[in-house]
């Protein structure tokens, strides 16, 4: 298929349809409203469902209701909206329903701003809602990867019967890049007859299905949480994705960075290479599960003197990087979170000054 030039937000909407998700509920919020605008036009063309809910709170439960019926379903929002949806996300995780949430992150806390940010790292990877649960979190670095991750998100959500989040940022949502919609990423929906409320007639069963998250018996609740934990452990074995950049040879410092920020770092690394300075990078593509081993192994290379977590947040991912290094290397943070993004020149300047002071 030929490449088309698309905005990240629109491409995510189209990717959902290509992934066989014909159900979309959302509430407008900058900088992701183009997904809703795009799908408002596009869903009727494919006999799909588009509905603008009255709030992100309600949308979260529209997603829950639809997902509990076993249908592929998605919503998109941005930071304050995802906070409101976090209640439903906890219920969906507890009730074990597959669903896809996209967060086109903007600055926070509170209303924050509308410019790009990665300030929702903790919310996405450590919870957000209440209770013992995780989301599988995919972090694209551009429009093409946003498309691929959106398409992958639905089968992943079904594999683990849980919510999957795509964490982009305002820039990925707003910018246009050429994209291709890879047909081989389409995976037919899994059979959900053993748990989904599809109606007994439809599945030819006399056994009712109940989708719920309430387990008053402590042993049963514990068992449900153990089931979830087993899934998260399986994700750590099977779903970790990352990109290693310029790590084949020796390098004096290792950058850990993801999403838009990692693209800036790549350019900085290329520019430093031209100046004769070798810097490596590990880019997590999954934020949960986190590529702990890859970061650890890259950081302990003898040539590597510094490890820097470069983020569009005030130092959130750095905690996972520290955890990965098990005390063997010190890691420092570099970033900002007001909406401005460091340029490749500023990143390079920072790295050079760190190495000088070493």
């Amino acid at each position, binding site marked *: 298929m030929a490449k088309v030039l698309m905005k990240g937000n629109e491409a995510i909407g189209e990717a959902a349809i290509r992934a066989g998700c014909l159900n979309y509920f959302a509430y407008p919020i900058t900088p992701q409203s183009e997904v809703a605008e795009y799908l408002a036009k596009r869903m009727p063309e494919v006999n799909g469902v588009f509905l603008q809910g009255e709030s992100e709170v309600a949308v979260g*439960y*529209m997603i829950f209701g639809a997902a509990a*019926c076993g249908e592929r379903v998605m919503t998109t929002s941005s930071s304050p909206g995802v906070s409101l949806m976090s209640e439903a996300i906890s219920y969906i995780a507890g009730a074990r329903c597959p669903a896809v949430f996209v967060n086109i992150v903007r600055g926070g806390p509170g209303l924050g701003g509308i410019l790009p940010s990665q300030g929702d790292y903790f919310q996405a990877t450590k919870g957000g809602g209440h209770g013992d649960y995780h989301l599988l979190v995919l972090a694209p670095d551009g429009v093409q990867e946003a498309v691929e991750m959106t398409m992958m998100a639905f089968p992943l959500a079904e594999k683990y019967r849980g919510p999957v989040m795509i964490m982009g940022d305002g820039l990925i949502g707003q910018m246009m890049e050429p994209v291709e919609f890879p047909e081989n990423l389409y995976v037919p929906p899994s059979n959900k007859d053993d748990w989904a409320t599809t109606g007994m007639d439809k599945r030819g069963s006399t056994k009712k299905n*109940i*989708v719920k998250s309430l387990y008053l018996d402590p042993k049963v609740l514990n068992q449900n949480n153990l089931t979830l934990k087993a899934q998260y452990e399986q994700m750590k074995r099977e779903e970790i994705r990352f990109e290693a950049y310029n790590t084949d040879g020796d390098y004096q410092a290792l950058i850990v960075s993801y999403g838009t920020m990692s693209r800036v770092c790549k350019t900085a690394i290329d520019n430093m290479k031209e100046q004769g300075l070798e810097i490596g990078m590990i880019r997590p593509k999954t934020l949960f599960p986190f590529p702990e081993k890859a970061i650890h192994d890259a950081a302990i290379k003898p040539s590597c003197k510094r490890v820097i977590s470069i983020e569009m947040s005030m130092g959130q991912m750095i905690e996972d990087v520290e955890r990965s290094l098990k005390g063997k290397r010190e890691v420092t943070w570099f970033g900002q979170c007001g909406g401005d993004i460091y340029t490749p020149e500023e990143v390079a300047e920072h790295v050079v000054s760190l190495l000088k002071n070493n």
Partner: protein
Amino acid sequence: MGKTFSRPEALSDAHTHYCPGCTHGIAHRLVAEVIDELGIRGRTVGIAPVGCAVLAYNYFSCDFQEAAHGRAPAMATGMKRVRPDLMVFTYQGDGDLASIGMGEIVHAANRGEKFTTIFINNAIYGMTGGQMAPTTMPGQRATTAPTGRNVEETGMPIRMCELLSSLATPGYIARQALLKPQYINKAKKAIKQAFEYQMAHKCFSFVELVSTCPTNWGMTPLNALKWAEDTLIPYYPLGEFKKPE
């Protein structure tokens, strides 16, 4: 002589956890009888609220989902939009529907979502232990209104049927009661009517059932019925408030 009375097929063979004298059992039975009579059990999905009826999925023998507090209408919306062929009902109490879930019920009704809501109004929070509800009567005592509801501070009780009837979108809105056989017969007719409108993909349908809570009202079941008749019925008049067309 043949069998004249039996458990509806749509009810499970289970003992409920409801208190003695509680009218939830009657409401469950009426909904189940209607499901049986319409022959829709195999394509019905109920949604349980947060509240006394949270375990309703154990008592009905059809598919069920369990919502968060007040969000059942949003879940029902999600379900009906992606599976319009399913028969969907929410079963909600007054704290769930008229307090924390006010936004969801008003917007679902206003969009004319084609599902049915059974609204149990017993003027108090049951499961959490007798706190004040939006439907608690002026002067009525509750654990969070120990000297009785002070309407100067908390406003007047909300009449959901009247409020939803004010929406311009067509719908079926009715209030009946579960206090005596005549009322119960009318309540069943209203529930059946509501499900029939849903079957015909006609409109949103809403049946409020004035109910009792002897435990949290601190009354015997009989006194509770009398108090509801004397106090609730004058403020929450029975009848059909709105019909489509």
